[in-house]
């Protein structure tokens, strides 16, 4: 089984760390992983994007035109990339900052998680990327929450390991926020 996920937001939301965390979790589960930070003209406007592909076998193209899952953290990225999601795919949006009002997205499972709000409830808005990862795991079932939690040890530098319990809390909050 080959999974691909596109994550986009603005610089500072932890998009690349989220991609790294999903990658380490997939490696923890014995999968092969390609993590591709997508460089484009957008980087000058402060956008951050990455694609993670993981599979039991070959990961194939690190470049994905129509992702099966997109995790969108800000409005700019939503306006630009939400429509690229593959038919039948999933689009997880940070509904605190992103509104999908008036946008027709047929044949797509739109999941709204108020990530900024939940992160603030937990006491730190910087946890928004952890909520995104938890929501991704819960919405897709592609990765176990335990793998994400285990992956924190590798994705975070040693000096930040004291923050792992708070990050675990945020991952779980993200998963819980996904409607069953």
């Amino acid at each position, binding site marked *: 089984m080959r999974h691909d996920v596109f994550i986009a937001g603005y610089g500072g939301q932890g998009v690349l760390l989220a991609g790294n965390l999903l990658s380490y979790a997939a490696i923890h589960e014995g999968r092969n992983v390609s993590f591709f930070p997508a460089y484009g003209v957008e980087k000058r406007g402060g956008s951050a994007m990455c694609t993670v592909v993981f599979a039991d076998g070959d990961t194939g193209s*690190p470049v994905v035109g*129509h992702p099966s899952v997109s995790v969108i953290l800000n409005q700019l990225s939503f306006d630009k990339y939400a429509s690229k999601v593959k038919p039948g795919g999933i689009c997880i949006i940070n509904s605190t900052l992103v509104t999908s009002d008036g946008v027709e997205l047929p044949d797509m499972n739109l999941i709204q998680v108020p990530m900024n709000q939940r992160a603030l409830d937990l006491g730190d808005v910087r946890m928004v990327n952890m909520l995104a990862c938890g929501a991704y795991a819960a919405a897709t079932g592609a990765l176990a929450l335990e793998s994400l939690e285990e992956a924190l040890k590798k994705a975070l530098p040693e000096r930040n390991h004291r923050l792992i319990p708070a990050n675990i809390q945020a991952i779980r909050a993200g998963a819980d926020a996904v409607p069953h």
Partner: protein
Amino acid sequence: MSEKLFVKGNEAVAMAAIEAGCRYYFGYPITPQSDIPEYLSRGLPGLGGEFIQAESEIAAINMLLGASATGVRCMTSSSGPGISLKQEGISYMAGSELPGVIVDIMRAGPGLGGIDASQADYFQATRGGGHGGYRIIVLAPASVQEMYDLTMLAFDLSDIYRMPAMVLADSVIGQMKESVTANPRPATALPDKDWVVRGRGEGQPQRVVKSLYLGDGEMEAFHWKMHARYQELADRECRWEDLETGDADLIVTAFGSTARIARTAVAMAREAGMKVGLMRPITLFPFPKQAYAEFSRRCKRFLVIELSTGQMVDDVRLSVARDAEVDFYGRPPGAGSLPTPEELFGQIRKVYP
């Protein structure tokens, strides 16, 4: 099996160089390859090696020449503009029959160009790049694992054939992170370096490392010797990966990053019931001509894909049977020009017989 690491392509090159016994690196920073000197600046000093950030790319390549003349394993790396500056030194190394590894993480050009992925330095790499009519070994990794494995291979081939070897990748392969197994250095049988100049060994016959041949017939003899060596390389060292070519009515062919994108496009075509295969050259010099010739006996349609307006396509056309048709699809390098698998699948549909 050792633990899987998760590293950038550039970091894998640096790790492999250390594992291959390279202790001397000379370079000058340029995007998108600066992770290589960064890693080695931390890694080499503790191993008794030497990391030098030279005053320029030209200085770095000439330091490589000097270090290589003493017999040690050594490396430099750069990207387009810097690789152009190094061509004089590479030519001198080729003329002096000196091994040494040069890593080119291609970016868009000409001139300063841009930092996005490019494959437009194919001609420069595979035709030698500098003056005087020489070739160098060129290896084209398509994954972070291959960045690791082929860097080690580059050191071995370079020592065996006494010529510079280049690892030719681009910013996609250099910047992306993948799971990697850090394989141990292979136990390749290597020739004695009985030509090195170390300034020791009194009473030994004089050794000279040079690229100047003024004697009657000397230069011509050198060229014929190298010509024979290139032929030997072609006979023994061609490497490629082919997938689902057995029954293919169309063979898609690409190297490096585009081969990765093409691989998924080929899978999409197979899912749609089309008989499409993939041929990915791993050695660009020597180019696997024979393999193409053999594929073209059965399959009469080829689609070459490159991040340029077409360079490798010339080599494919020279390699396949006369009655085979070779189509080309290219995206010249630059921001936003990276093709998607869906786009390449569209091209496959267009030319599929």
